[in-house]
């Protein structure tokens, strides 16, 4: 790579260039990063940050390509969990444990948000944006149908039924990219099965034999009729637009979508929607107060030539100062403690972030938690299940087959 050619500044200090890769090429995020970078550069005259970005979908593929080159970015975005773990296993991620443990860096984060970056007791990354999955609902439509905000699974199904009877589409759902369905299943799995899911999700174990997996799908099947038509043919954001247009009553969204909803919706609508947590499943074995959703974060490349500078940048990027700017400008909350006070940002965002911070533990997104190959089969089968083309047993059988195959290659 040509970027690390040392330049000599007036003071005689060597200027180091580090490459930085994120996944927000669109505005206003890109400008935000540009400002962050220039602030950092101003504070650290010996470091130059070469910033690049790739948007969400291609990022998943491109990051692998990029890490294969000799020119891998020194600091890059990633989703914790299996998505990152494979890079860790391949030595592509720098071990931050030592740095984290000194100067109280580790302690500056809300631990539930840092924990996802831990593998085998070593810390590999830092959270940049916290996230979790919640339901949003249209108060007016609920009123129309005389429906209540549900807190249990059975209530939830009743609510759906009522809405349906009032000729209102109960749930907006866009599952053309099937990561959307994985969020439902991930949540239901956790709530029904409990700790066993971690055994299943670990590619080295890959044991999906717990009957809860089938049970979870059976429960899921119960809600399928309440989705809008053609869920497999529309995109998540399209569904969200429909929901915002009053074409459906509820939607399962990520907390990070809230700022987006806020920014485009009318004032009228802003007062007209509320949020609630995924209903608890009463006979489920899982801890019902866990929350689905993992933070997103950044890591340092395992092959970086400038670990010191890269770590410094990472620390700044995920730290409190940037966190505040991030919260104010983008409405995103990072994993650092006490970044903003209530009132500084929109209440919905603040409140919902508190839900995350208060959750006992985060449950990783199913799609980034699972090994890619297993995930692919799982998601495809889930789409099929929604179309009634397969049964829960068959789905899990296929998943198990793939998981076994992956385990054997491990």
């Amino acid at each position, binding site marked *: 790579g040509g970027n690390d050619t040392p330049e000599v500044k007036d003071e005689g200090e060597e200027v180091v260039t580090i490459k930085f890769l994120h996944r927000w090429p669109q505005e206003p995020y890109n400008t935000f990063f540009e400002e962050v970078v220039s602030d950092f550069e101003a504070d650290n005259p010996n470091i130059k940050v070469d910033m690049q970005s790739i948007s969400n979908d291609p990022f*998943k*593929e*491109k990051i*692998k*390509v990029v*890490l*294969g080159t000799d020119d891998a970015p020194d600091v890059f975005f990633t989703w914790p969990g299996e998505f990152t773990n*494979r*890079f860790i296993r*391949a*030595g*592509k991620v720098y071990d931050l444990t030592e740095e984290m443990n000194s100067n109280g860096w580790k302690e500056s984060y809300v631990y539930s948000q840092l924990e996802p970056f831990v593998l085998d007791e070593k810390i590999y990354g830092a959270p940049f944006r916290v996230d979790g999955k919640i339901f949003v609902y249209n108060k007016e439509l609920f009123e129309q149908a005389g429906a209540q905000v549900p807190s249990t699974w059975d209530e939830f199904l009743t609510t759906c039924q009522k809405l349906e009877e009032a000729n209102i589409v109960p749930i907006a759902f866009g599952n*053309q*990219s*099937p990561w959307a369905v994985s969020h439902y299943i991930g949540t239901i799995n956790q709530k029904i099965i409990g700790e066993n899911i971690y055994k299943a999700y670990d590619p080295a174990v890959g044991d999906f034999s717990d009957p809860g997996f089938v049970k979870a799908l059976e429960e899921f099947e119960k809600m399928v009729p309440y989705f809008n*038509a*053609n*869920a*497999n*043919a*529309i995109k998540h954001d*399209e569904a969200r637009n*429909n929901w915002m247009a009053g074409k459906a009553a509820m939607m399962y969204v990520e907390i990070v979508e809230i700022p987006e909803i806020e920014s485009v919706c009318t004032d009228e609508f802003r007062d007209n929607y509320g949020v609630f947590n995924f209903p608890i499943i009463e006979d489920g074995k899982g801890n019902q107060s866990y929350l689905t959703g993992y933070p997103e974060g950044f890591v340092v490349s395992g092959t970086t030539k400038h670990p010191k500078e890269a770590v410094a940048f990472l620390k700044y990027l995920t730290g409190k100062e940037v966190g505040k700017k991030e919260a104010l400008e983008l409405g995103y909350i990072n994993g650092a403690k006490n970044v903003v006070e209530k009132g500084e940002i929109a209440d919905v965002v603040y409140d919902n972030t508190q839900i995350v911070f208060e959750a006992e533990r985060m449950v990783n997104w199913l799609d980034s938690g699972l090994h*890619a*190959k297993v995930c*692919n089969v799982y*998601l*495809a*089968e889930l*789409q*099929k299940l929604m*179309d009634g*083309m397969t049964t829960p047993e068959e789905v899990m059988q296929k998943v198990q087959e793939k998981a076994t195959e992956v385990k054997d*290659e491990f």
Partner: protein
Amino acid sequence: MKRLKQKNYLIYMLPAIILISVFVYIPIIQNFYYSLFRMNSYTDEMVFVGLSNYKKIFADEIFYISLKNNIYYAVISIVCQVGFGTVLAILLESKLAGKLRVFFRNIYFLPSVISVTAVGLLWYFIYNPNMGMLNSLLIKMGLENFTHAWLGEPNIAIFAIIAMSQWQYVGYIMILIIVAIQKIPIELYESAQIDGANGLQKALKITIPNIKETLLVTSVITVIGSFKLFTEVYVMTSGGPYNSTQVLGTYLYNTAFMYDEMGYAAAIAVIIFVITFSVSILQIKISNSGKE
């Protein structure tokens, strides 16, 4: 002096030869080699697995779905692009078409100059089940029963994509055929007219036999193109729903860059190569035997 000239001609060919060798042939040969390994894109680690990638392919459900989709695509494209394209070309070149033929020709060709990404996005909108053009039109015409979630229904989605390609490429093939038709001396038609041939007979007995070669070439272009298929699917469905629109190109891409199985992807590449190569050889054979 003569000898010097010979060398000169080599110089003319050299840049092209080097570029093609290095960036087309070497990768392809290397690809054969890779197909014998298990490897991923982000490490240099390679595990020799012999032919097991191939063994796996032949037991792989998605591979067969992909292959089937490619074959659908090829067959339909031949019928629509070459078949209908020929009809269109003949009609446009017929006397009846008059002066507006250039206008129509350009219109029909237009979609093929637009990028597949743009066309894909465009058709994504057309097929959108809620506000898409197709369903909107169907509803307007009172054909509500015919509305579909075009890209969301597994038994329809691939055909929806294929339909889009036909829309895009009929004009392209048509142009190639028009060019061939224009090379047929007009006297042949006049002679046939005196011999008593009507329009249809002229098309069948004069035009078609005289553009046989072009028809073969365009068929091969179409078939090879069918197996090169990637962007259309990637942009429209990425292979979904549940792999029902997967084709070899996207499957290869997915295995390589999403499932981290570069070796397996290389093996798929080899199979694409074998298929396209055999089709082409077949064509050369056929056209050669036609020349005798």
